[in-house]
């Protein structure tokens, strides 16, 4: 849960800091250095999640690990991270998808661990879709506003 917490916090900061760095139209060296710290924290939490899940699978095979949503989200996190690193996914989609995946992971784990509601495929689908739409709109509105401001 701590790795997911680190991921949720760091992904929020990744987006807000990226938009802040772009405020003057370009990302300079010092800003790039600080963004790298955030990306390393995200990578660290992704590795920790994989390690913890492997340990859980080994010792307690019938716990959280059996949930398919968990694997779907983790695969998306890894694949999207690789696509972003290789610049194969546009800036308008990659970071938003990553933040939405982290947040959905956080929401689903909270709901499951605290037994707040029955976990269904519909709940997962609606939550993930809502998160993706929210972050795509947020990032693109931010980028559009920055472009407009820098043109003026």
């Amino acid at each position: 849960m701590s790795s997911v917490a680190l991921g949720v916090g760091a992904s929020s900061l990744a987006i807000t800091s990226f938009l802040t760095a772009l405020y003057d139209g370009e990302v300079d060296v010092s800003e790039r250095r600080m963004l790298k710290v955030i990306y390393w924290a995200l990578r660290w939490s992704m590795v920790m999640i994989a390690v913890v899940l492997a340990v859980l699978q080994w010792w307690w095979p019938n716990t959280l690990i059996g949930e398919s949503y968990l694997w779907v989200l983790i695969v998306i996190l890894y694949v999207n991270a690789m696509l972003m690193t290789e610049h194969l996914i546009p800036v308008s989609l990659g970071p938003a998808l990553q933040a939405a995946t982290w947040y959905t992971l956080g929401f689903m784990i909270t709901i499951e661990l605290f037994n707040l509601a029955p976990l269904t495929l519909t709940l997962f689908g609606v939550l993930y879709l809502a998160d993706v739409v929210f972050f795509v709109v947020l990032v693109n509105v931010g980028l559009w506003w920055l472009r407009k401001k820098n043109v003026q």
Partner: protein
Amino acid sequence: MEIIFIAASILLAMSISLGVGGSTIAIANFFVAIADGTIAPEERNIMGVTYWVLRVAMVIIALALITHYMLGYLDVTTPWFGTTQAVAAGLVTAVLYINAILMTYRVMPSTFGPAIQASSWYTLGILAALASIGFTQFSLLVFIICYITAFVFALSLVNGIMGWLKHTKA
């Protein structure tokens, strides 16, 4: 009422997540920024964003905790209200607020401030993780000893890295 309880629980867990991640990045970014001896305006801007995210997380935590306490007091929900976990979460949140205010007004020295804040965020994160596995009743004295241990660990780590940065710069 149940919907309010579920919403408050999710908000509490997510804002603690935001705080744990945010405080880790805040400290790491501070070290990266100070490594060359000065904090550039661009670096200060990004650190400012991090502090705002942490403030947002703190406000949501306070609201969610108050909602939980009220629901518990009105006997609407679980017996969580009476557990040591609830007292401990309230205590750590109070420390977070007081320390943040003292740091903002530069009353708290930088030797202690960031370490108190980081150890408080992580303690809150660990409390939430323990609650998720049903571990909510424990001795308050044991909790305080663990909290102080976390603070001493954070204090050594933060000041150790600061000392090392000063040494390498010299």
